[in-house]
């Protein structure tokens, strides 16, 4: 299985994505931002379509648009507008633009399917390098700002910072989340973002009681699903996303049902 370069790429990409998704997903679930990841992934779809239109790698377009979206959601978050309304407006616009970019770029439907449902088996060496650089960036930011981000995610009411610092921290978190969504979309596609960003972290909450252990177990669940999914996809010639989605959902259901 590992003789083929595309499988090596896929396993490497899957491992990087699982690391990011497990760590960032733990904060996302703690902050109940699950549905925001979905909106961001719709924006990632528009970004990828925009990338295709300009002849860029899909990930670059995704990163650009989700980054801009995170900044705008972050600045609107501090106003009196309801966040779910803002988010639905932005994601509606994103999907519309995505369709426009696909039409303008005469992008083949296989490419569009790849964005929406993931195309990890077709990942190129360039994509892999971009993915690795993004992963390092996200993990570095989390390393440096771990403690304040942890407090923001797990106890916002108790967080005591200068108002400008709290605002900056919230925007930083949204940016990290946006980048992670763009990264994860590479593997499972824009439509299945929950599969890696929220389900492993949500499942881990049934077993662990410290932030570090929640992250470790979320990474383990994500890696298990990804590696098993890739292997099954290789053996059956069916899409990888299907298997990863089913595995993560089963892990979540078993965790929820067996919890005390």
């Amino acid at each position, binding site marked *: 299985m590992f003789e083929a370069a595309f499988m090596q790429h896929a396993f490497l990409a899957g491992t990087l994505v699982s690391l990011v998704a497990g760590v960032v997903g733990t904060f996302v679930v703690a902050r109940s931002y699950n549905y925001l990841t979905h909106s961001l992934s719709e924006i990632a779809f528009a970004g990828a379509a925009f990338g295709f239109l300009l002849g860029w790698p899909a990930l670059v377009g995704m990163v650009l648009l989700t980054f801009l979206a995170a900044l705008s959601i972050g600045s609107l978050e501090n106003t009196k507008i309801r966040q779910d309304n803002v988010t639905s407006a932005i994601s509606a616009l994103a999907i519309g633009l995505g369709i426009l970019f696909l039409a303008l770029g005469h992008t083949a439907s296989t490419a569009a399917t790849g964005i929406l449902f993931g195309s990890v088996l077709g990942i190129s060496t360039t994509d892999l390098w971009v993915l690795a650089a993004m992963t390092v960036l996200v993990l570095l930011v989390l390393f440096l700002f771990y403690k304040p981000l*942890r*407090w923001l995610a797990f106890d916002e009411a*108790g967080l005591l910072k200068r*108002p400008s610092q709290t605002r900056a921290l919230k925007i930083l978190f949204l940016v990290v989340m946006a980048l992670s969504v763009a990264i994860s979309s590479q593997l499972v596609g824009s439509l299945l973002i929950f599969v890696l960003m929220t389900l492993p972290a949500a499942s881990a909450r049934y077993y662990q009681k410290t*932030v570090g252990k929640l992250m470790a177990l979320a990474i383990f669940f994500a890696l298990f699903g990804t590696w098993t999914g890739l292997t099954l996809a290789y053996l059956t010639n069916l899409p990888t996303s299907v298997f990863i989605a089913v595995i993560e959902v089963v892990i979540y259901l078993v965790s929820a049902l067996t919890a005390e």
Partner: protein
Amino acid sequence: MTAVISVADYQATFGQKTILKQVSFTLKGPAFTVILGENGAGKTTLMKAVLKAALAPHPGSAIQVQADRLAYVPQFRDLGDDYPLSIAAFVGLGLNRGFRPWTTAAEKKRLRWALAQVDLADKADLALAAASGGQKQRAYIAQALVQQPDLLILDEPTASLDAKHTAVLIARLRALQQETGMLVLFISHDTSWVSQYADNYLWLHDQQVTVGAAAALPQAAQSKHSEEVHHV
């Protein structure tokens, strides 16, 4: 350092209504100060203004706060029934200094100290969501203590506790305040314990504040707490 709060001609309005009119006072640590007043008298407004002045100091503002480390226990915390963290992990959120993700040996020691102060050392691994109301309240206070504050502000931390647990918690806080020399501002609705445990009071009434020794708490400042509870 000794925490000092100086307030000069502070005015608070809520919409059209003036809550506090040109109030001035000084509070200095070490002391246990209780902030009293009816609902709507401006206790929380004043406390929030003090927090803001401490976090983002402004030379010309009416409130000046001198304190190295400030900690705050809010009145409400909606953490949800599926909150995953243990009591120790929750308290450890207060250890938030430095650009490094790990916890140092000194920080771990402080965490154990803070848990022991509120009598939660043997409940460290209990999930916070599974803890009783009193245990949760003590965990909130431990999270503030782990920051080693010289100014500690608590907004009605005993509101959800019964009389017995309230008395135990306040006695413990008083002892800690005396050990560490911090300035404690304790917003309270209930005044039954004030003369026994507090040094002084700050009473908000009729758009004014009155400051005095807790032993000489005016009759009018005393809450009708027991009457409220018993619906007299």
